[in-house]
């Protein structure tokens, strides 16, 4: 082709990282954390609160180190349960959303039951699961029940949020249903799916812990939730706090890992992963 005017060069690397803002995202949470620890320590020291009511942060840290072998083993068990529940939720939620998208009949038939599972508290379902299923399976199923609905709901929303004109374009070029799904719906739904997975990551841990507590009450289990229950019965409150601390850190790590995956997949094109231009 001749005759078209040359285009001005666009600096594709013009997105400037907000470097001076980046440190604030790290520093401020750390400042709040340190202030919270100091305040906690002061409250315990000044109020002379006994450790079986509220242990100070130093004692909790010491307990964490002293009981590390027990707690880390339990953490491994809980994380494995959460991971299995998460994988089941991711596969089940995405697969069900795809089926719903391909068949309205299926969506109308099954969605109400998915909602029933979502709104029923897992702590109420867990004892039933423990009756009907082997203990480890029951715990994983509970983690799955809690985690799968956000994946299902987000994926369904994403698959239905396709740009109308792009859908028209695929229609114009007589794209097959599979091509529409592969080249249009799934990429368009990806940010929604990843958002659902980020929620599901935390929820699978919550589901695993809730089920472990139910299982622990039934007299078995070695996950972190079981250690919390056990410590509660023995009034070993510092270990209880240490276990809670581990759970919180595990939850944060899960969230950050999933956020990292999400960022890696979306960083080239999606607004949520793009740095603000200065």
């Amino acid at each position, binding site marked *: 082709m001749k005759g078209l005017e040359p285009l001005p060069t666009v600096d594709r690397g013009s997105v400037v990282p907000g470097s001076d803002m980046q440190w604030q995202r790290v520093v401020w949470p750390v400042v709040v954390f340190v202030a919270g620890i100091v305040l906690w320590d002061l409250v315990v020291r000044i109020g002379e609160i006994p450790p079986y009511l509220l242990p100070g942060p130093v004692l909790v840290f010491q307990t964490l180190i002293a009981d590390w072998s027990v707690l880390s083993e339990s953490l491994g068990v809980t994380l494995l349960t959460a991971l299995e529940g998460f994988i089941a939720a991711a596969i089940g939620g995405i697969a069900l959303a795809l089926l719903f998208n391909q068949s309205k009949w299926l969506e109308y038939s099954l969605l109400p039951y998915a909602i029933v599972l979502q709104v029923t508290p897992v702590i109420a379902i867990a004892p039933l699961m423990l009756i009907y299923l082997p203990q480890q399976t029951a715990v994983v199923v509970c983690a799955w029940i809690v985690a799968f609905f956000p994946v299902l709901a987000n994926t369904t929303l994403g698959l239905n949020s396709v740009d109308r004109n792009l859908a028209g374009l*695929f229609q*114009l070029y007589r794209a097959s249903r599979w091509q529409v799904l592969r080249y249009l719906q799934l990429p368009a739904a990806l940010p929604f799916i990843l958002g659902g997975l980020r929620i599901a990551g935390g929820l699978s841990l919550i589901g695993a812990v809730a089920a472990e507590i139910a299982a622990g009450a039934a007299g078995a289990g070695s996950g972190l939730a079981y250690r919390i229950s056990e410590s509660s019965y023995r009034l070993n409150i510092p270990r209880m706090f240490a276990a809670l601390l581990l759970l919180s850190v595990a939850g944060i790590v899960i969230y950050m890992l999933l956020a990292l995956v999400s960022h890696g997949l979306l960083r080239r094109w999606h607004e949520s992963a793009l740095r603000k231009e200065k």
Partner: protein
Amino acid sequence: MVEPALSSNDAPTAVRLRGVTKVYDNGTVALGPLDLDIRKGEFVSLLGSSGCGKSTALRLIAGLIAPSAGTLDVAARSSGHAIGFVFQEPTLMPWSTIRENVRLPLKLAHMPDAQSTARVDEVLAQVGLADFAGAYPRELSGGMKMRASLARALVTEPDILLMDEPFAALDEITRFRLNNDLLALWRELGKTVIFVTHSVFESVYLSQRVVVMTSRPGRVSAECHIESSEPRDDAFRTSMAYAGYCRDVSQALMTASDAAFNETKARA
């Protein structure tokens, strides 16, 4: 200068609409009855106020929606040839590079990438985006995105190019530049172009024929043949002839609008 619709011509008909109406599910009568003939290789603009059914007419021609009544004969569709469509927005897939966006119609036609790459690169060069093939849509300006959209519409070498107010959101300078580029492409490729716009000036500058439509439901109110020496350029845009055509088309548009207003008033 202003003539009734359906002027005859010897060139083969690319698009023929007879008594076409479109009533949407909510009861809105968007179009018709619309009678329109468009000849092969012709550049025709559909001009009318917002909501008059111009885009609906374009979508009907593309086969994206079905008419409620009437007959619609699009030679390209019945012969299995491709139709290119450029939307008001660039409508690019943000997750794909410009090259992959342009390749999409060929990919949907199951053409292997190894085969389609040469064609994609050729059409990217045609619209001046050869250096931006690996960029993502967000990295391009509005005008460049529209060029990418145009490249995607042209990649299948369609018989008909349908354009739905493609430059409406662009600034004046970019719009002028793209108008010239579009005319250059049309002269070179000889496609039938149906261009929807609400800009009198744009329609006169680009088209061989301007079809003025009434307010909703859209019908053909008048046609204006634009006769000027080719290639059109900025000299034409500043000529007395251009100003005269713009005046005539504006007048036809006002007449169409007044007629629709009076009709609505009489009905009320």
